[in-house]
């Protein structure tokens, strides 16, 4: 340990409801069992029913995305004309949003693997963003979806740089929570790309940059190809007017970043979503797993176009219950899931975007500050301790140097 001051005794929980617990609504063992069976039944029914309409759906979305992209690039080529620039930037933003959310995210979950089309194979798909697809599949499909909302295991909780849970001990660094969040939102594609780097563990000195060499190489290759395309090749096609497509491409990337950050942060962080404890979730049954996914996720209400642009992550609950069912089915399933929640007395967290995102923003602000005077002392103590030991280390090193 690096703390110079002795660790204060564990504070008793201030607010029981906010503490992670595996069973806040008191379900019995049989109820967990039944819940598991009911969810399995939904899953099985949809699996058996997949067919032409799902294939047509995803191909239609891909077609729309390719069309928007070509139109956007074409308009931005002549981006010196203001209406062209605006329309081109809008089309390219939409294209990138569709590509990342409704196509990339969902195809990489294996939702369309049953079609047996190598182009829609979850393992081979690549998307139009900085994060290499194979790294995403590990950090998202496995780490996040298996260990959803387990503090310390699910790295989507704060992406290693934000404080999104009371369970993350407060440090003075988190005073910047709103600023870090705004930066993460703006450069979200890079935040996602660096997800597996575990920067917070580097800051703690647990791992070094060298440990992640392979990972960095993969990110470097992908980022380079993406940057060359958006910031060199396409602008170059406009010759001396390169600045217009360049600005349009950058804007489209940022629009996509802000949108995907907004949707994704509304998935698990609005008020009312539950967090879980690693020890308590060991050996959980399938029913308990479904229950954790239900309580840890929140939905967004809206129209059909909104759901498509949200990659159907507006049905985050259904997505977490059934991550590999075709996303175009989540809307239909949500009616049944909601009914099941009512019968078991479980909450079904849904609200319009402004309300859910508002509550996320509030949480980001609230968690920037220590939860209590005690956590302030502890946080400051920790920081002082770290600074102290660092100084001490420096001292030692200089003594050695003198020798």
């Amino acid at each position: 340990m690096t703390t110079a001051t002795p660790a204060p005794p564990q504070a008793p929980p201030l607010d029981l409801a906010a503490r992670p617990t595996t069973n806040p609504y008191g379900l019995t063992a049989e109820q967990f069992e039944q819940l598991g069976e009911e969810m399995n039944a939904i899953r099985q029914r949809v699996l058996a029913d997949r067919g032409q309409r799902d294939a047509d759906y995803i191909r239609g979305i891909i077609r729309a995305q390719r069309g928007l992209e070509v139109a956007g690039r074409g308009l931005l080529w002549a981006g010196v004309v203001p209406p062209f620039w605006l329309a081109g930037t809008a089309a390219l933003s939409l294209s990138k949003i569709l590509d990342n959310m409704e196509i990339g995210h969902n195809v990489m979950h294996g939702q369309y693997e049953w079609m047996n089309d190598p182009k829609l194979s979850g393992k081979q798909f690549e998307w139009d963003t900085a994060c290499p697809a194979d790294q995403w599949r590990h950090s998202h499909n496995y780490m996040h979806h298996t260990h959803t909302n387990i503090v310390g295991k699910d790295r989507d909780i704060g992406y290693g740089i934000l404080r999104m849970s009371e369970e993350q001990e407060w440090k003075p660094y988190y005073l910047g929570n709103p600023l870090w969040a705004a930066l993460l939102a703006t450069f979200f594609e890079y935040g996602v790309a660096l997800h597996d780097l575990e920067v917070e563990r580097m800051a703690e000195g647990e791992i070094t940059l060298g440990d992640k060499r392979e990972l960095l190489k993969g990110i470097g290759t992908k980022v380079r190809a993406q940057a060359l395309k958006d910031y060199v090749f396409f602008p170059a096609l406009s010759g001396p007017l390169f600045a217009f497509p360049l600005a349009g491409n950058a804007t489209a990337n940022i629009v996509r970043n802000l949108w995907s950050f907004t949707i994704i942060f509304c998935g698990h962080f609005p008020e009312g979503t539950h967090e879980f404890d690693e020890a308590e979730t060991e050996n959980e049954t399938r029913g308990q797993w479904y229950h954790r996914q239900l309580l840890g996720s929140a939905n967004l209400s809206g129209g059909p176009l909104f759901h498509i642009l949200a990659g159907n992550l507006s049905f985050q609950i259904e997505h977490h219950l059934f991550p590999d069912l075709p996303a175009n089915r989540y809307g239909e399933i949500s009616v049944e899931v909601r009914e099941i929640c009512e019968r078991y007395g479980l909450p079904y967290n849904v609200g319009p975007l402004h309300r859910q995102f508002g509550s996320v923003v509030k949480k980001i602000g609230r968690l920037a500050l220590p939860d209590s005077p005690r956590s302030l002392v502890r946080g400051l103590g920790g920081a002082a301790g770290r600074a102290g030991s660092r100084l001490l280390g420096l001292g030692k090193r200089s003594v050695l140097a003198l020798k």
Partner: protein
Amino acid sequence: MSPQLLPRRSLRFLEAVATPHGVDSYLEQIDPLLVAGECRAEVVGVERGTEESVTLTLRPNRAWQGFRAGQFVNVAVEIDGVRHQRCYSPTCVEGRGATVEITTKRHPEGLVSNFLVGRAEPGMVVGLSAGEGGFQLPDPRPASVLLIGGGSGITPLMAILRTLFAEGYEGPIALLYYAPDAERCIYGEELERLAAAHPNFQLLRSYTRAPGSGELDGHFDPTHLPESDPCFAEAETFACGPPALLDAVRGTWANGLEHRLHVESFVPPTFVPVGEPGEGAILFSQTGAGSGVEVANSGASLLEQAEAAGLTPAYGCRMGICHTCTCRKRAGTHKNLITGEVSSAPDEEIQLCVSAALGDLTVEL
């Protein structure tokens, strides 16, 4: 020989601006046949010769690499959103021609054959592979050729016949063709025409369910041979048909003549589970490599069995959620341990962690 429409440098620039999806993924939105990296073909002719069979004329795109007479190609069709792939022997003259012809017979439970016989129509686009398999007419051409076919096993033999006649081959050719009756004799009329036009071609048919109406009677028997060609032992022999026919042929060619015999088995795909959990053997093969690790099927999930065999396939959640362990099953029947779904389809993506083998199974790690 790869199709090259543009100079290499322009192509590299196009791929760089089309990253990460590739130029083809944009071109196919205009026309699925425009892609350069994948061979596809348009159905341009549909001829329903008999009630039970259909002959399709395919026009491949520029990625087509051709085939040798006797070889098979993989044809992929989409049925209810799912891509299915089956092997067919082209029946046309070999090479990289403008069209390819395939014939398929309806299998009672065959998903793809029923689809093609019942619903194939001009304009449909299918996936197409280059010719595969060692069953092929050698170069230079042999001095004499003997062909033995049963049922739809006639198809690769048709390609050999047509290729030889197109080349003006002058050596003796004999065909022993076994079909249930004259109605189910695929290519019957054309074979008669060829026999009439080419004195070096001897056509001998046996209708196994209508004795007395063909040149021969009954199933394959060595006594059929002297009638066809007294020097059959010197002829290069190509046999294709159901296993029983091939077994009988192999038995006849067993005395030092094996090197003259080329066989291709035409076994309809399996549609019912052939084994029980814990039966048979699992072959974990490596991508592209011929070798692999074979273990006795314990009935446990394929992931557990692979690990028990010392293999280290990628995995994640181990509960059927994350698809990290998805691999391609080449052959065999598997059961999804979560849904209970059983499937015998070849070439299918399966999740190792929640799949168990029913009988023999081959999976590519």
